[in-house]
């Protein structure tokens, strides 16, 4: 409906203002009808004449001809050609498929005749705070917003609507600020409050509600294309809810918007960045990520960066920079080179084009929740206390340790014991015959690690004359086998992780070549990062330089539900040809990455008594550490050993706790920086000139002193000189309340975007927002406190015809609720809503089989239970390729890419959804139950209660009559119990057993009727 009613153009609405104005009236015509050829990218079409700059447009075309002669329309080629009757002469040419309307031709003529005054594109001129205009009906004005609105109405000869009644008002503002309707008690309190600031009190209460942050997050998640899966083909799960919760929290603690923006763009690069600031950068990791088998990773690495640029520019700049990916922008002054200069800011991320099939992809960080942080802090405190307690015994320890040293006679070793998975010692001298190229040691239950685990592998080796073959492994016994292993490859230490040869594997090898026939200690640590950078190789205690041969591991060994049960092998695992020849001893496998001191002990190879025999002054720190550890573990008095054990237990506990931390993907800077090239025609495999990071020339330069990197870009974005950020932001909030932005094209403030319906109002709001210190709550309050917002939304047919989209704002907003609010409202009025904030996404009811029938590997939707069924909709698990149907049916953004414009359609699928989806059938039953339990004794009272519960106001007599008739019909209809039983069984929550079931079924049906009312699903 909205689409077919948009006949009246804005320019007609504002035509009465008088005179043609370039930005408002002329540029849109030139942009839409001329710039494809005569615009910023004219050169690409070999068109010499440009209409996008004043100098070019008014230049001499040769032969004394001018496109535009100021004040002389008849002599101007622009007027002649656009008005030409001969098709061969007429512009735009027939071949373009574009035509000018008679009124557009007239506008161009009028503009030239009036002197062809040119203006810079409005949105690139910094906003200047206009004074609030004088109006006749000054009494109506509650905020400066109203003065602007009223001025226009008065000019149009219109009057604002009366203020909405209180019931309507509190429902409107509660939905707008919290996404939930007011409770009857809240309505009553407001109705009874006769104080002059009663409404303001409501607004303040709502802004303080934790529900406010959730509501504000709705649209931010759409803009940030937040989802719980990777998208593309396999569409596996990822974990980004810590970022989502950061957003909710940021709105609730009213983080100033400039910081909100800066932290999301470059929080990681701030000095001493907090966990919160790092998590915020998940914004630019929310894009889709491809894990498909056969892709060319470089191609997708480029797509991710392009997505960041497109999203960042749409959300923060209202700019369609993405249009300059393949060529100069056709309409706006952005060159292709500038696109790649902005691209460069977001390209320097140490990431891979192929994402992890399951879980998050690097770069990512552990992101403990507040309770987890508290638990960690408590553990650390205990740990410090235990360490301090131990330190108090230092004098005694030193003495007692010395006593113990003297008693050491036989050679004994100490190596780390904490998190030891496997140890194998063979006696250092007697093994030469064991590893002869055929024999190996098999440990079926050892080292059961997969690619996301972290661990340490270590051994002493002595090869025969050919230092080659497998040292230890857990992999299918062939060179391309699935699993991991440490091998010698012609003397180099070679580490591999293979899920699928050769596109799903990591291979690194040392530069160093080990000498044959000599003992070496080798240790390999792996951080679980699934990238080569997570592998460190030590030889004889030294961290070795490694060469990365392959670095694309993305599927676990247990991929697709397979069991990975290769044994841990010592001396084998690289195929029969490459069994180890020589000696292997002191194999140690740990379930964590050892710290430096521990690693050093492994490489020390000195027995405790050897160290003890050295004079104390000659012992190294590592030697002291080994001695002390050996003493504490084996010889210290029980009280001290207990302390030592406690310390170890705390460390274990800490590691276990850390393993439960959710992670979040974040931005990070690659070192050394990655070069960026202009991509010819936008193709990843056609690099052109190298470019340096930079901002578009049409916008202000980086602030002085700002570094030319992503942090500098963020500082530039929020700098006062940026003409766009505040305008774009206030406009998006405006859209939230009034359904349409002051600039309707909220994503495009460029020359193809729509001229603002009220430029002064937009600029006043933008400057006010900055003046307030980017105070988001204050901005919301400013809007909802306005008389404009508080108008009744009733409309006459005449007014509807004059202003179908309500751009003049002679009435209050009335439009269907967004998808999340429809469901949340139903849960709320039913009394089912679970109010828990944040946490992992949940899986409420969904029709069976939706995932399975089109996803891979029988990936199925496993519905949650209990509280999970009743959480707010922003916590519903969002699988990109199969989005929740009850959200998509109601025009939710699909979370594939950034969406900032709100759209609303009106379809029969919505009707079916609300009538028949178990979510709403169950909610209706609870509404029925509430009517019976809380609504009073008579049917009339109960129906009135239910109607008010759902709509926020009492029914009219006529409405009440319809409801009563409906109730009677349903009482009659549910006269047989099988129908009642079937109907009441919907949903997992049980009805109150004390209630009469037939009556409950009838009231539940009326509850459903209430949920399906137009006014229930509409903000009025």
């Amino acid at each position, binding site marked *: 409906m909205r*689409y077919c009613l948009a006949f009246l153009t804005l320019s007609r609405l504002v035509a009465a203002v008088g005179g043609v104005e370039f930005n408002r009236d002329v540029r849109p015509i030139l942009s839409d009808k001329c710039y494809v050829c005569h615009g910023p990218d004219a050169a690409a079409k070999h068109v010499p004449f440009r209409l996008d700059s004043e100098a070019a447009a008014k230049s001499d075309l040769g032969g004394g001809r001018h496109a535009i002669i100021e004040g002389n329309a008849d002599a101007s080629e622009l007027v002649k050609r656009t008005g030409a009757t001969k098709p061969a002469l007429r512009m735009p040419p027939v071949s373009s498929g574009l035509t000018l309307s008679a009124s557009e031709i007239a506008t161009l003529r009028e503009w030239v005749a009036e002197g062809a005054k040119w203006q810079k594109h409005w949105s690139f001129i910094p906003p200047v705070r206009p004074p609030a205009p004088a109006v006749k009906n000054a009494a109506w004005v509650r905020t400066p917003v109203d003065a602007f609105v009223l001025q226009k109405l008065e000019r149009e000869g219109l009057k604002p609507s009366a203020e909405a009644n209180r019931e309507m008002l509190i429902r409107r503002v509660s939905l707008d600020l919290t996404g939930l309707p007011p409770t009857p008690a809240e309505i009553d309190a407001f109705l009874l409050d006769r104080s002059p600031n009663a409404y303001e009190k409501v607004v303040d209460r709502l802004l303080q509600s934790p529900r406010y942050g959730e509501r504000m997050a709705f649209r931010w998640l759409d803009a940030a294309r937040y989802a719980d899966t990777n998208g593309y083909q396999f569409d596996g799960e990822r974990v980004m809810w810590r970022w989502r919760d950061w957003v909710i929290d940021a709105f609730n603690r009213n983080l100033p918007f400039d910081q909100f923006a800066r932290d999301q763009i470059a929080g990681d690069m701030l000095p001493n960045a907090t966990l919160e600031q790092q998590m915020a950068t998940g914004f630019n990791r929310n894009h889709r990520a491809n894990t498909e088998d056969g892709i060319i990773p470089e191609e997708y690495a480029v797509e991710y960066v392009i997505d960041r640029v497109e999203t960042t520019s749409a959300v923060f700049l209202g700019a369609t920079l993405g249009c300059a990916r393949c060529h100069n922008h056709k309409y706006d002054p952005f060159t292709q080179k500038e696109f790649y200069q902005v691209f460069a800011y977001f390209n320097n991320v140490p990431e891979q084009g192929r994402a992890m099939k399951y879980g998050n992809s690097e770069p990512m960080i552990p992101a403990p929740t507040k309770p987890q942080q508290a638990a960690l802090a408590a553990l650390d405190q205990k740990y410090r206390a235990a360490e301090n307690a131990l330190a108090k015994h230092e004098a005694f320890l030193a003495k007692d340790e010395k006593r113990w040293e003297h008693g050491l006679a036989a050679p004994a070793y100490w190596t780390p014991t904490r998190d030891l998975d496997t140890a194998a010692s063979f006696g250092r001298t007697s093994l030469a015959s064991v590893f002869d190229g055929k024999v190996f040691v098999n440990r079926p239950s050892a080292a059961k690690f997969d690619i996301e685990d972290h661990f340490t592998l270590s051994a002493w080796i002595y090869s025969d004359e050919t230092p080659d073959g497998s040292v230890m492994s857990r992999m299918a016994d062939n060179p391309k086998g699935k699993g991991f292993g440490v091998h010698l490859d012609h003397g180099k230490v070679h580490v591999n992780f293979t899920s699928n040869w050769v596109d799903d594997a990591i291979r690194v090898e040392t530069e160093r070549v080990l000498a044959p026939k000599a003992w070496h200690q080798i240790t390999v640590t792996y951080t679980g990062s699934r990238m080569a950078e997570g592998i460190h190789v030590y030889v004889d205690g030294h961290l070795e330089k490694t060469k990365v041969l392959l670095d694309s591991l993305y599927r676990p060994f247990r991929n697709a539900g397979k069991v990975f049960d290769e044994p841990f092998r010592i001396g084998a695992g690289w195929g029969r040809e490459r069994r180890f020849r020589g000696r292997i001893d002191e194999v140690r496998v740990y379930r964590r990455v050892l710290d430096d001191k521990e690693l050093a002990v492994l490489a020390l190879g000195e027995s405790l008594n050897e160290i003890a025999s050295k004079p104390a002054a000659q012992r190294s720190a590592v030697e002291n550490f080994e001695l002390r550890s050996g003493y504490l573990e084996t010889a210290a008095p029980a009280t001290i050993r207990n302390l030592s054990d406690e310390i170890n237990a705390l460390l274990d506990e800490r590691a276990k706790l850390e393993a439960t931390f959710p992670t979040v993907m974040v931005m990070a800077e690659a070192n050394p920086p990655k070069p960026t090239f202009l991509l010819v025609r936008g193709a990843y495999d056609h690099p052109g000139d190298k470019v340096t990071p930079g901002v578009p020339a049409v916008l202000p330069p980086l602030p002085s002193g700002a570094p030319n990197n992503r942090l500098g870009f963020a500082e530039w974005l929020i700098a006062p000189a940026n003409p766009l950020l505040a305008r774009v932001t206030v406009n998006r909030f405006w859209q939230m309340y009034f359904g349409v932005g002051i600039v309707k094209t909220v*994503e*495009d403030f460029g020359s193809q975007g729509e001229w603002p319906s009220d430029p002064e109002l937009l600029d006043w709001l933008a400057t006010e927002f900055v003046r307030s210190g980017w105070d988001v709550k204050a901005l919301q309050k400013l809007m909802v406190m306005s008389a404009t917002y508080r108008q009744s939304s009733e409309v006459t047919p005449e007014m509807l015809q004059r202003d179908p989209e309500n751009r003049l704002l002679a009435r209050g907003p009335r439009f269907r609720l967004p998808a999340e609010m429809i469901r949340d409202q139903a849960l709320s009025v039913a009394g089912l809503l679970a109010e828990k904030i944040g946490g992992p996404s949940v899986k409420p009811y969904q029709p069976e089989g939706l995932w399975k029938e*089109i996803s*891979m590997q029988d990936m199925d939707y496993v519905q949650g239970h209990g509280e999970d069924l009743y959480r707010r909709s922003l916590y519903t698990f969002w699988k990109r390729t199969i989005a929740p149907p009850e959200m998509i049916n109601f025009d939710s953004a699909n979370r594939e*890419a950034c969406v900032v414009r709100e759209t609303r359609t009106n379809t029969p*699928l919505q009707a079916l959804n609300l009538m*028949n989806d178990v979510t709403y059938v169950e909610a209706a039953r609870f509404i029925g139950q509430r009517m019976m339990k809380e609504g009073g004794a008579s049917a009339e009272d109960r129906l009135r209660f239910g109607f008010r519960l759902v709509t926020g106001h009492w029914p009219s007599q006529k409405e009440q009559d319809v409801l009563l008739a409906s109730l009677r019909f349903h009482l009659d209809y549910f006269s047989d119990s099988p129908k009642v039983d079937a109907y009441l069984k919907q949903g997992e929550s049980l009805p109150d057993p004390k209630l009469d079931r037939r009556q409950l079924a009838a009231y539940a049906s009326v509850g459903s009727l209430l949920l399906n009312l137009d006014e229930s699903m509409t903000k009025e």
Partner: protein
Amino acid sequence: MDPLEQSKLLMTRRHFFGRTSVGLGAAALTTLLGGDAEAAGGLPGLPNFPPTAKRVIYLFQHGAPSQLDLFDYKPGLQAHRGTELPDSIRMGQRLTGMTAYQAKFPTAPSLFKFAQHGESGAWLSELLPYTSKVADDLCIIRSLQTEAINHDPAVTFFQTGFQIAGRPSIGAWISYGLGAESQDLPAFVVMVSQGLGNSQALADRQWGSGFLPTKFQGVKFRAGADPVLYLSNPPGYSDDARKRFLADLTKMNELTYQEYQDPEVSTRISQYEMAFRMQHSVPELTDLSKEPASTFEMYGPDSRTPGTYAANCILARRLAERGVRFIQLFHRGWDQHNNLPKEIRQQCRQTDQPSAALIQDLKQRGMLQDTLVIWGGEFGRTVYSQGTLTEDNYGRDHHPRCFSVWMAGGGIKPGVTYGETDDYSYNVTKDPMDVHDLHATILRCLGVDHTKLTFKFQGRHFRLTDVHGNVIRPILTA
């Protein structure tokens, strides 16, 4: 619709539920999915030409069938069996990550016999005995090309004209441009069936509306109790109760309309009426029990099992009969990287007979002339074997540079084979056709100039064919 007209209409309408049981006036029932003139009649000015097709049935073979084993006969390959694919043919073509590291690229001729069929003498594989019988109705295109080499981007490219998701699907474009023909059913319906081979993931966005309003998205019909999501009333709630419920709801909403005069309310009323009609029209449509036995014989034994490709083909015909504009079937399981001979046999057993039956069925009902049928996948498969080539086994990787589809009816020349490939079915040698061309040609059959079907989004006038696309006139009857 003019809001004043709309309000008059509301005042004078005779209600569907309530006083009379006479159906709604046609004027109020402009469309199913939009409730306004735009969605019903499509865009003003469309169609641009007299259409040769009123509707499209697109049989999407998901996973990419091998052209070498079905349509693109290369007898000369037997002589090169097992030999390395010549560089002169490969010409540095990029390969997927799955075979890029393969050391050898042994030529794998098809194991299957080909023969000529019909008066047109079209070459078809023994895997397609039924399709062979309707060869004279088909236009086989051997020279299709795509830019994508992986499933998701390739399907996205076919569906939206662009490899990266976000643009409207072809069905959404068509329902936006031409609107719905049916009063009771959506303009764009999708059905998915499961194959027996290696299946790739699909996504709802493949029939999504992208930046077009969501009312233009494809509605997925599913096998089972709820062919359309949330179609059935809750257990215990009868059709009569629903009718009464809707009568009461309409009364309530009319009171709201009187108060606010918002035309959205009257649209909402008609959408609920439409929902009720769908509750009847969809089960009637998907209930195959009244089809004669001859139908099931024609479409094959699978066709009695709901949710199969064969059953979906019957549904496609029934949807076409009821005026659904764009009907798209997706059949999964064509991704035969390994064990191709075995898997393709199974896959053809599922699809050959019903695909051919659909052509035959439409023809005997006189509907083929204005129904465009398309059969094909998202790319082709390589002539070289993925994995080891043996006597009776081979696999084929993705191949974007040439592959085959067929089109029939709706203004497409029958009995034609269009386009040629080289001796290895590796490169197109004559009459190349790309995905944009296919789109332009489909739109042309529907009477739409592909350069005129645009939607302004983010400042740009977007098209299905972007800035590309040529109508392939030699395959058109007019």
